[in-house]
């Protein structure tokens, strides 16, 4: 990386996340006096965006090539009081919490106290949502049965396709004008709604063009004052780029990147969408510009790399908007989940890996930033070289890129009824969620705590933490004569809580459609523009709602434990088990160890436990799959946790597989931490027993030490491991190459790290099974190995 990038990267890494009150002030100003009383909701939102983009501070730092920030400067993070109005207490928490804090200046606090809070308190969408929720919803939410993604952040969860690389916003506006012209109020009963939506979209499109013009002006001013002739010329180029895009289609790599970045800022300024926004399959979009630049001689590899690196830094400058409450628990991170997709299949189904794929992997490796995230879609048609290149980055312990199965994603999409052509332009976003890029609204609506539902089942519908009834009365523990009866009660409870959750979602989705339309985002996702329908109101071609199941590993092991010890071996009765769990295994350590060590566990390729996992999967799938949402689409499941398995663990008492109260649940579809003892092939075999293709994404984490991947054959075998998992239809796997610090943890707490494999000397073994001296030697080696 050159000096310019090194400096920009340093600034990005060192910038401190602070709360900026600018957006809150501007939006309040707009709603207080400028919003027309008769404007429709979409037009009002479009005018609000225009107000923001016309007035928000510009930032153009020294050395920058790609310009524009969400806040007034890098990591100055705006708030969205129309959605969530932070209280003074929230601000104090944000300012002082040890993890993911945001600095709140006394001025910001004063602005909130005097202006923002008085105007928005009780009137934010969050207030409306909580006021609308039923008593059963509120009780289940407070008990930690599920979370709610839309309560303080807007549904976004969508990804851009290639539509901006061949067309400018002027073209979009022309389409809108044509639609307005052809609108026939006589024959179209929805004429008014469409007209308002198109007007709003036009205003939103114009707003971004004007915002870019402001940057062009700033760059011209800076160029005029600049002494350094090289920088002067660069600023001139920036001015030229910003007056070209997004108004017109981009002509070169620089314009393409700047165009996307303006669009990104438009989306995340309009609303605080989940997963920010995402350019999707960036190698596919950018390679033509790269090739053309090389052919014309206007670009070389170094220049292209520099532009891409400058682009990367822009993502890292935007921490996720400050979350509070349960939402902060489920997603305790600064990352805003933009997941760059590389590789996979081309639109015609051919191998989609190109030169830009490799160039971007170089960028990922060199930049080593938290954001953006990156992934590779691995198709059976992609060369091993591509997968191996990605795994070389993985082995440095960076945790990126994550590895996805392109064919599985394709089949998942086809299974959901999407066309083959559209399915091929799909991928994964956020953590692992599959969707069609540029044509789908696929919303994660909340996490669902599966082990908690089993706990409630074992307590006849009561939450043992509060003693309150929150579930169905399905009978006390002594009433179940067989495991099947118990499982049936569990199945009914799952269905009940999914009912409660979906009833809530149905209201929340409509609140967004009516109060918070997103005309800007609607410009970007087909077929909102063609239909004259908002993104939140079913305008997208495909509309999917997901409920993300959490703790499948913990649940499976609990079921195995209950079936094996209670109903088969009769080690103890179900009533006795429930008492032991209520007492958090107090005085029952031998029993707890028995449950931990002498019970079939998911993740070992043991059908006893894996069959129960499949049964639990089916129960959850049936409870969710195919329910209609409010946008003309349907519900599906996916299985991923972000950080919610920690929170869900905290609200769940001791569990029958030996987990103590409050400890984390298993994450994704990974086995319980330390329960898998047969190595990675067994984990993958177990995980592949569920039908990944009927989900919208599953997450599998595997831990490795660097030594295991040190040589070429280690890497080759990792390629084989991935390829085989994908042959079995696995959706995703990520390799966590552990640090010396983790090994030290494993030394202290061996039970949790039973699955950690280390390479010893031409030989691999479980770390916790090694003697202390040898463990120490490996820790030392891990510290010193640098790839």
């Amino acid at each position: 990386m050159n000096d310019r990038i090194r400096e920009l990267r340093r600034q990005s890494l060192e910038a401190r996340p602070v709360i900026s009150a600018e957006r809150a002030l501007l939006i309040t100003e707009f709603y207080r006096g400028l919003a027309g009383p008769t404007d429709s909701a979409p037009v009002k939102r479009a005018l609000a965006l225009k107000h923001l983009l016309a007035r928000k501070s510009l930032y153009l730092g020294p050395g920058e090539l790609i310009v524009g920030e969400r806040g007034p400067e890098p990591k100055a993070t705006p708030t969205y009081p129309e959605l969530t109005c932070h209280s003074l207490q929230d601000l104090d928490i944000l300012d002082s919490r040890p993890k993911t804090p945001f600095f709140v200046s006394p001025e910001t606090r004063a602005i909130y106290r005097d202006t923002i809070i008085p105007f928005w308190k009780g009137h934010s969408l969050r207030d409306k949502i909580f006021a609308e929720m039923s008593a059963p919803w509120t009780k289940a939410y407070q008990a930690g049965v599920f979370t709610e993604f839309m309560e303080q952040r807007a549904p976004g969860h969508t990804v851009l396709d290639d539509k901006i690389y061949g067309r400018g916003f002027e073209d979009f506006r022309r389409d809108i004008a044509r639609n307005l012209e052809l609108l026939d109020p006589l024959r179209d009963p929805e004429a008014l709604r469409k007209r308002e939506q198109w007007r709003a979209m036009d205003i939103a499109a114009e707003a971004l063009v004007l915002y870019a013009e402001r940057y062009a002006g700033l760059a011209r001013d800076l160029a005029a004052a600049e002494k350094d002739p090289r920088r002067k010329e660069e600023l001139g180029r920036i001015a030229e780029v910003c007056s070209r895009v997004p108004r017109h289609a981009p002509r070169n790599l620089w314009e393409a990147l700047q165009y996307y970045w303006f669009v990104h800022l438009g989306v995340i300024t309009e609303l605080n969408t989940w997963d920010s926004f995402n350019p999707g399959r960036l190698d596919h979009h950018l390679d033509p510009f790269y090739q053309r630049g090389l052919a014309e001689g206007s670009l070389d590899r170094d220049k292209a790399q520099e532009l891409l690196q400058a682009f990367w830094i822009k993502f890292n400058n935007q921490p996720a908007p400050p979350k509070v409450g349960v939402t902060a628990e489920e997603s305790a991170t600064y990352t805003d989940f933009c997941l760059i997709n590389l590789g996979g299949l081309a639109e015609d189904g051919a191998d989609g890996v190109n030169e830009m794929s490799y160039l971007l992997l170089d960028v990922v490796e060199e930049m080593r930033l938290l954001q953006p995230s990156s992934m590779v879609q691995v198709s059976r048609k992609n060369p091993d070289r591509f997968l191996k290149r990605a795994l070389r980055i993985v082995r440095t312990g960076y945790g990126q890129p994550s590895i996805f199965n392109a064919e599985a994603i394709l089949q998942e999409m086809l299974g959901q009824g999407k066309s083959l052509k559209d399915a091929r332009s799909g991928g994964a976003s956020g953590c692992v969620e599959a969707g069609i890029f540029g044509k789908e609204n696929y919303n994660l609506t909340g996490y669902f705590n599966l082990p908690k539902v089993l706990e409630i089942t074992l307590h006849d519908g009561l939450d043992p933490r509060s003693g309150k009834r929150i579930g169905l009365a399905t009978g006390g523990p002594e009433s179940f004569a067989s495991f099947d009866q118990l499982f049936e009660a569990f199945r009914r409870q799952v269905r009940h809580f999914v009912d409660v959750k979906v009833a809530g979602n149905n209201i929340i989705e409509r609140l967004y459609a009516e109060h918070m339309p997103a005309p800007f985002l609607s410009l970007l996702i087909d077929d909102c523009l063609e239909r004259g329908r908002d993104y939140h109101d079913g305008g997208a071609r495909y509309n999917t709602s997901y409920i993300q199941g959490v703790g499948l590993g913990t649940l499976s092991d609990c079921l195995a434990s209950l079936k094996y010890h209670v109903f088969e071996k009769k080690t103890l009765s179900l009533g006795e088990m429930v008492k032991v769990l209520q007492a958090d295994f107090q005085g029952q350590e031998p029993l707890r160890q028995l449950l931990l060590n002498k019970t079939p566990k998911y993740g070992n390729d043991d059908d006893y436990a894996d069959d129960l996992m499949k049964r639990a999967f089916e129960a959850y799938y049936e409870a969710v799959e195919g329910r209609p949402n409010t946008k003309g689409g349907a519900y599906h499941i996916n299985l991923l946790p972000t950080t919610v398995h920690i929170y869900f663990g905290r609200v769940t008492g001791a569990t029958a597989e030996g987990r103590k109260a409050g400890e984390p649940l298993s994450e994704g579809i990974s086995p319980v931490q330390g329960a898998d003892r047969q190595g990675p092939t067994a984990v993958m075999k177990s995980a592949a027993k569920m039908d990944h293709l009927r989900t919208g994404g599953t997450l599998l984490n595997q831990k490795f030490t660097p030594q295991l991947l040190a040589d070429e054959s280690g890497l080759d075998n990792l390629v084989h491991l991935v390829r085989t998992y994908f042959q079995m239809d696995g959706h995703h796997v990520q390799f966590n190459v552990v640090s010396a610090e983790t090994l030290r943890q494993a030394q202290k707490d061996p039970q949790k790290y039973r699955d950690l494999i280390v390479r010893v000397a031409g030989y691999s073994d479980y770390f916790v099974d090694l003697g202390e001296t040898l463990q120490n030697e490996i820790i030392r080696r891990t510290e010193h190995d640098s790839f």
Partner: protein
Amino acid sequence: MVTGVLFDIKRYALHDGPGIRTTVFFKGCPLRCAWCHNPEGQSPFSELMVKPSRCLADCYLCLERCPEAAVSKSGDILRVDRQKCRTCGACAEACPAEALVLIGRRVSASQAAAEIFKDEVFYRQSGGGVTFSGGEPVMQTSFLEELLEECHRREVHTTVDTSGHVPWPSLASVQSKVHLFLYDLKLMDEDRHRDLTGVTNLIILENLKRLVQGGSRVVVRLPLIKGLNDDRDNIEATAEFLRGLGGVERVDLLSYHALGRAKYERLDRPQPAGEYAAPSRRELEQIKNRIQAFGLEVHTGG
């Protein structure tokens, strides 16, 4: 039904032949190498392994179950009286914490096969397969034959890791079903070999010759222990012998590691008398060069 005694089955074994493999460890070995890192593989019978650090306070299930009163706990220290213990395994079965583990179980060939072929899909993708190791797998000849036969039916690649100290007819009977032999050579000097492994090397060298002459693919593995067998004389004598055989595919150098040390304690066996160490990286490189000088292909690591 043919049965055999195994002490472990390890999946995702990457160092015992090509690709992703499952390594099957046969219990029982004719050699008693002083530096052995798998001492639990030596005896052909089940053995009780004790890991006192895993033992739970206030848990006496093993004491309750042991029919011979061989298990005791004084303070919190778990002990097994090996004179009284008849390795019935009752204590290990009762132990919730895996402080007591019975090593070695008798299984039928079909039980073993059920485990072995679980990773078949990985073998196919990676060009891997099954490695039979130990202990000495060829000692349990008919059991090994049965498993090799099953591998053949399924067209799965087979590797046998052998000490070579077995009657030739045993080796001959499996030869045609083994795709690759990993053949361990410890020392060329017969007296020193006898001192350090308890057996002569004459059978080992003769069997190796016959295997190679019979057309088997053979990779020779040299475990290297500093000061015992890494001297120039032994290395050159080994290389000379291997060159003479003509058909050895490759020589793998395996450095000694101390992994097995803790196991002796857990089996209540005396630790090997000597202090063993691996040759240094430089010495290893030198050994590699010496052997290569005889026109042989050499790899370090398995």
